[in-house]
């Protein structure tokens, strides 16, 4: 019986349309290499739990609608786009295949398309490893905080950063930028409680290249310095980036939940290299 099974195995073996040995020569072939690099260019996550926070568009008329409603509406739109993107999952291979960006993971009519590789801005561990990534896209500069857990990588952030910052393309030298909006030295968000695995709130933003130091005035009156990354390589616009991990507790602010509409940071203070204040910008109201 065993001998007969051996013969049957041999017959089946010989019935194979091709043997592995005959395919060794295709290792490293054009098709193989293209596939390998295309796969590596995809987001390496099993599931993306991205909740996107979008900065209120700077064109929103003041006083026309409450900030929360605007943020929620924008978030709903982007979340819907992201959900669609995740459903349809993904990038346009062969178009800009050499661009390494996790944003390739999004697809849909509203999804930004990266036009340059991701630029890591800052990273650390706050319950889970996190990293802040800036990416130049067809929707402007996108800045996201990504949180890496055993279940995958989540992201929170938005696009369109820096358009009203001094030095940004299209802005006039002094007072007004594209569309006539007032220019600023600094902008930022109050962070997001989008990922429960992160035990601290991480805030971030951008500033003009001349900004050398950033202080944050918290809601309870304390002042803490932020880390500043001056004009990182890979970012075309003359912008610097700032980030900070907030204290576990800020008096009067509930940082325990996933609610985004809390304002632990009251004000951003941008200073130049001499320590002189370039701008104090309140961030807990529309348009910063």
């Amino acid at each position, binding site marked *: 019986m065993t001998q007969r099974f051996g*013969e049957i195995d041999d017959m089946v073996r010989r*019935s194979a349309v091709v043997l592995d040995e005959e395919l060794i020569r295709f290792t490293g072939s054009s098709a193989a290499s293209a596939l390998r690099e*295309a*796969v590596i260019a995809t987001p390496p996550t099993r599931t993306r739990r991205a909740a996107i926070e979008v900065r209120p568009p700077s064109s929103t008329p003041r006083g026309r609608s409450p900030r929360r409603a605007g943020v929620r509406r924008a978030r709903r739109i982007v979340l819907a786009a992201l959900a669609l993107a995740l459903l349809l999952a993904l990038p346009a*291979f062969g178009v800009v295949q050499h661009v390494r960006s996790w944003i390739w993971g999004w697809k849909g009519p509203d999804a930004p398309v990266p036009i340059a590789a991701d630029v890591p801005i800052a990273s650390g561990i706050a319950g889970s490893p996190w990293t802040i990534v800036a990416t130049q896209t067809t929707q402007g500069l996108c800045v996201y905080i990504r949180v890496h857990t055993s279940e995958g990588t989540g992201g929170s952030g938005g696009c369109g950063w820096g358009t009203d910052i001094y030095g940004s393309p299209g802005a006039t030298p002094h007072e007004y930028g594209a569309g006539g909006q007032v220019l600023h030295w600094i902008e930022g968000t109050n962070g997001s409680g989008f990922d429960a695995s992160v035990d601290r709130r991480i805030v971030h933003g951008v500033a003009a290249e001349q900004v050398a130091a950033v202080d944050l005035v918290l809601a309870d009156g304390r002042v803490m310095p932020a880390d500043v990354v001056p004009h990182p390589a890979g970012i075309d616009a003359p912008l610097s980036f700032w980030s900070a991990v907030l204290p576990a507790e800020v008096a009067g602010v509930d940082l325990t939940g996933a609610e985004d509409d809390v304002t632990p940071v009251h004000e951003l203070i941008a200073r130049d290299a001499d320590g002189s204040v370039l701008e104090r910008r309140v961030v807990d109201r529309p348009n910063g």
Partner: protein
Amino acid sequence: MALGRIADLDRERDHLFRRLFDAHYHRILGYALRRRDDAQDAADVVAETFLTAWRRLDDLPRGGEELLWLYGIARRVVANSRRSDRRRTRLTERLREDFAARLRDELSSAAVEHGPEVTVQRGVIAEALEGLPEEDREVIRLVAWEGLSRAELGTVLGCTPNAATIRLHRARRRLAGRLREAGLDDEPALATRHTTGNRLRPPAAEEDER
């Protein structure tokens, strides 16, 4: 802050995947070509297998089980691809189309025709295999085509070596019955009649001829 730590991890991940891919690409390609009817489908299986492996790279077993892990993924991809309601992502669609086009070109340049005798015998064996339940077919193929041992078979199937051995034995018995019905089981000459030349002939070439 641990600046650069994440970037280092990303680089390690890329490096790990490239090594895995280069080491086993030809085996996964072979696995796919032996089970799918045309290069397009085979390309689909290869692309999805490595995409899944990339996304689940954290689960990659170290040591000698990397290939078995890939076979396990490929087995599920093949099984899923047979479901009529299967949903393909756009990513997979684009990727597999691009890959399939390149693969077809490469395999076409290496295509060699089979003699009629080999084709007929292969057809009889394939027919006998096709008459078996999918589980039996795969057990037999994994041993005969991928050359797995009983223990390795158990790893790919997700069962103990003993259970794998029992499943293999039963599958072989059923195949032997099929071959007996076809009058092929007692022909030792079969083994020698198949040894003619290069067997590489891409299904894509067949498709082109239609």
